[in-house]
């Protein structure tokens, strides 16, 4: 089990898959910059596997890429958990982050007080060994800035 910490930055992705490497690159940078009480985690884990990384943090920031198709590559989306419908309907396969979070709460596990998603619009997450799109790479400073703001502004609530 993770030790209690006030903030965790959960970077998701796969460093072998073109733009999907963004989470990995962001984690490397964030480790250099974050204060000692902020935990930085990178994982290629998915779905319910994420439950291992959700608990025991007051603030959880998830850094990831996404393909919405409605924005240019490199666009940074910042979403609070409250911005999205909390419990989605039936899913074709795998349960996602929000369902995992809802599951954790339902099962009375310690889940974060606040969840923020910082996601970069990707152009290609499917090419093994592919290069990261320049616009996605260029979004890194923006993401670092947003994450730093979030961490600085976090509420100082001790973990349960």
């Amino acid at each position, binding site marked *: 089990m993770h030790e209690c910490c006030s903030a965790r930055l959960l970077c*998701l*992705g*796969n460093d*072998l*898959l073109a733009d*999907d490497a963004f989470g990995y690159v962001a984690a490397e940078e964030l480790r250099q910059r974050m204060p000692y009480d902020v935990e930085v985690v990178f*994982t*290629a*884990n*998915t*779905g*319910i*596997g*994420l*439950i291992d990384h959700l608990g025991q943090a007051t603030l959880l920031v*998830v850094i*990831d*890429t*996404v*393909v*919405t*198709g*409605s924005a240019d590559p490199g666009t940074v989306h910042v*979403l609070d958990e409250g911005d*999205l*419908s909390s*419990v*989605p*309907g*039936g*899913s*074709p*396969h*795998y*349960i*996602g*982050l*929000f*369902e995992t979070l*809802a*599951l954790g709460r*339902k*099962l*009375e*596990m310690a889940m974060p007080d606040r969840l923020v*998603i910082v*996601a970069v619009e*990707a152009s290609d*997450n*499917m*090419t*093994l*060994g*592919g290069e990261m799109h320049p616009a996605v790479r260029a979004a890194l400073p923006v993401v670092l800035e947003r994450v730093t703001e979030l961490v600085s502004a976090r509420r100082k609530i001790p973990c349960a």
Partner: protein
Amino acid sequence: MSKVKVASNRITIDPITRLEGHGKIEIFLNDQGKVDRAFFQVPELRGFEQFTRGRPAEDMPQITSRICGVCPTAHHMASAKTLDDLYKVDPPPTAKKIRELVYSTFMVEDHALHFYFLGGPDFVVGPSAPAAERNVLGVIGKVGVEVGKKVIAMRRRLRDVISSIGGKVVHPVLGLPGGVAKRVTPEMQANCQEVATDAIAFATFTLQVFNDIVLANKDYVNLIVSDAFTHKTYYMGQMDANNHPNFYDGSIRVVSPEGQEVANFAAQDYLEHVAEHVEPWSYTKFCFLKSVGWKGFTDGPESGIYSVAPLARLNAADGMATPLAQKAYEQMYETLGGKPAHHTLANHWARVIELLYAAERMKELADDPELTDPNIRTLPTETPREGVGIVEAPRGTLFHHYVTDDRGVIEKANLIVATQNNSARIAMSVEKAAKGLVTRDKVSDGLLNMVEMAFRAYDPCHACATHSLPGSMPLLVSVRDKDGKPLHTLRRDFDGTVHHA
């Protein structure tokens, strides 16, 4: 937000990418505006051949397990076995047992998670439940919070076993050509025995949940055996010497739609039996049996389409290797009216039976006194050239095939993943659902549910089914006439609400 591509007489259902997996359903209309053909397409990773070429073959268990966050252990084991074959080296018995123990533990975890959290919305909550309840919380609502906690706790312990023996749970580092990297200590063995005993109790309990919730409901059983979810195809699975399914090793057995054995081959001979059909409109390759041939998207003994995954494995087998699983196996075929069972939705049942088998097998291996033997590696001495390795992934037969130069550097690598083996049959399932529900000017709400149920039973692997953003699969079904004129649009949002336009 979904991407929709429309050709003149083609409907594409393209769930937004990278949220929950990215399956795409394409429906083609004929001149009369009725469904001519429908296909389910799975996105495939690009660049695998190019990426692996020039790399040392020993890196493949790590590379292939890192491709996918869903079943890394299956790729890792298939790859380790391929290296054994490449270097013509036979691992010591203890090394094989350690590998199979890790693999059985992984199968228990994966099957349990599928039953409760992925397939659960269909059968535990029920196909006719309101959309808002057909999710993981609905499952917990039905089975209870304590059961949910039990599943999560079991998962944690299973993963601890995999970590302690396999090195890492997400991307194991255990398998080496000719054996494994680390021996099992008596303390590790004792822990495995304890977890395996509890895993059997957990699997037995899960079978009871299936009996109480699914089988006790006549409507569910009727749905399982309904024609809409039935295809008479060939079935494939890896078997031990007694023709009982074995996830880790054995020979590949294929039975006909009537249940007769038509092939039983070693991994190295797979290309003599399996071929891939390509359609000009799709990047998906459709596997079929060479000896029968490709006859289009049709079932029956004349068509070479086959399927893999839990039901196919049980159909291809003569029984189960462990006592509790054997009993459950007999009960299933008795209820379904004989073997093979052609009902796609029975995959959920077969999965629970396999969960029980995996737990029993885990215990057998954990109890084996040879497990702690220090001889865990046979060092390769042969010059490498070509190797094939097969395991049964949770989702079905997984083939790895590498060709190297004499230094063991990859020249060519080919994978056939479970979902590729199933792709033709999945396409037929989707087509059947679509034909029943879609016409020129109307797309039924039920289409989405029926289509999803049809492909979810196979537990298809979406290569990019990665993490994070909202859970549901937004779908957009756009029906157009053959000239491309929009006739009807149906959109389902993240929260499950359906809008017509």
